[in-house]
């Protein structure tokens, strides 16, 4: 019996998105969005790409936290409820009907145009066969995706890392930061329960070991620097949410992230662009894996620092 599991997952995925279109309450939208992202990650896994699935699952957790923090303040001012009520009022006039019908017609027309140009069923990619046959000799490692990201397509990785640095800098400059408000403000007066604090003491080492495992084994199995860095960044989130500590040096972490980014640009220049990894695979097969592991560790460190700064900016500082 052949169960069409991918089709079922994709249909649930579409249903979740349609639900998001028609819900008005902000908390419901965010929770449905979390479900949507997890179903998407599951379908990525069915489609044979565990790396992307891990990245999507980790990213969806972070994005949900950011949105919930954002919405909490939105309700605190009392304005959110008014906006929701304004949205729920249905006025039947020519303007409101046109406001729904025109986008619908536009989307349906574009959909019809897109259906005429679906990709061919027998699309043969020459690059796929080339990469699958040669990646182990050119770059090394066992995971084709990791060796493409860090070997053949290392320019893309550099610019992606640059974009993350730029977004962290932009968030730090744009976000609201008033020094007068920030003098020893704790999250709340109530301490967290003893159960939570004790359990976090047990679980936090496991989280760090898991992240380190994903980073160190990125070139052999699914995983890599980005996913492991996100797993390590959750440790800091747990530390903040459970112990309510707000005294970490954010400026130093930002400086460290920039320094690590400089190292990320230097390492491929020395290893890949000069062709060291290409020759190393023929002389000593293990030396090329050294490059992959070093690159994964640097990227993981950078991503952990970046998301640490983003989380503290959003939750600890932007909150008040």
């Amino acid at each position, binding site marked *: 019996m052949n169960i069409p599991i991918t089709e079922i997952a994709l249909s649930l995925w579409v249903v979740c998105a349609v639900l998001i279109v028609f819900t008005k309450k902000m908390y419901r939208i965010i929770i449905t969005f979390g479900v949507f992202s997890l179903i998407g990650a599951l379908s990525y896994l069915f489609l044979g790409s565990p790396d992307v699935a891990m990245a999507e699952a980790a990213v969806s957790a972070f994005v949900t936290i950011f949105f919930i923090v954002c919405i909490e303040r939105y309700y605190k001012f009392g304005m959110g409820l008014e906006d929701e009520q304004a949205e729920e009022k249905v006025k039947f006039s020519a303007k409101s009907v046109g406001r729904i019908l025109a986008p619908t017609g536009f989307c349906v027309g574009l959909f019809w145009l897109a259906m005429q140009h679906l990709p061919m069923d027998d699309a043969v990619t020459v690059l796929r066969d080339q990469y699958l046959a040669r990646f182990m000799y050119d770059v090394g490692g066992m995971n084709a995706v990791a060796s493409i990201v860090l070997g053949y397509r290392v320019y893309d990785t550099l610019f992606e890392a640059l974009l993350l640095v730029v977004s962290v800098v932009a968030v730090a400059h744009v976000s609201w930061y008033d020094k007068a408000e920030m003098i020893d403000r704790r999250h709340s007066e*109530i301490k967290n*329960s003893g159960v*939570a604090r004790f*359990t976090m003491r*047990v*679980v936090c080492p*496991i989280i760090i070991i898991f992240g380190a495992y994903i980073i160190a084994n990125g070139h052999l199995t699914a995983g890599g620097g980005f996913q492991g860095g996100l797993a390590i960044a959750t440790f800091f989130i747990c530390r903040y949410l459970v112990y309510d500590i707000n005294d970490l040096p954010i400026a130093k972490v930002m400086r460290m992230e920039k320094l690590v980014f400089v190292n990320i640009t230097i390492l491929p220049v020395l290893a890949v662009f000069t062709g060291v990894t290409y020759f190393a695979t023929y002389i000593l097969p293990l030396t090329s894996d050294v490059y992959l592991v070093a690159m994964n560790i640097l990227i993981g460190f950078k991503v952990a620092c970046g998301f640490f700064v983003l989380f503290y900016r959003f939750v600890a500082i932007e909150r008040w």
Partner: protein
Amino acid sequence: MLEYISFAIMGLGLIFMFFGIVGIMQPNKDFYYRLLVTCKIDTVGIITFFIGLAVRHGISFFTGKIVLILIIMLILNPLVTHMVARSAYRGGYVSKDELEKRKLR
């Protein structure tokens, strides 16, 4: 033989999950009732299902991974439910029965 036993255990886990979902869908029940039922899906259903998987695969590396995930689930899932219930209680949520009792006083 081992395969049938594992199927039976996994089916039991699915039955637990089914009853949990039926409990969530109950209308006119308050928040704490539904939270209790959700906790049942998270812990009891998943534990039974994972034990079934471990029995199916015998003693291997895969079973070791399953047991590791099971231990983490056992630690974390009750904690999550505890945190949600605690924050609801601290935030001033009062269930309907409790409200009626307070009115009677």
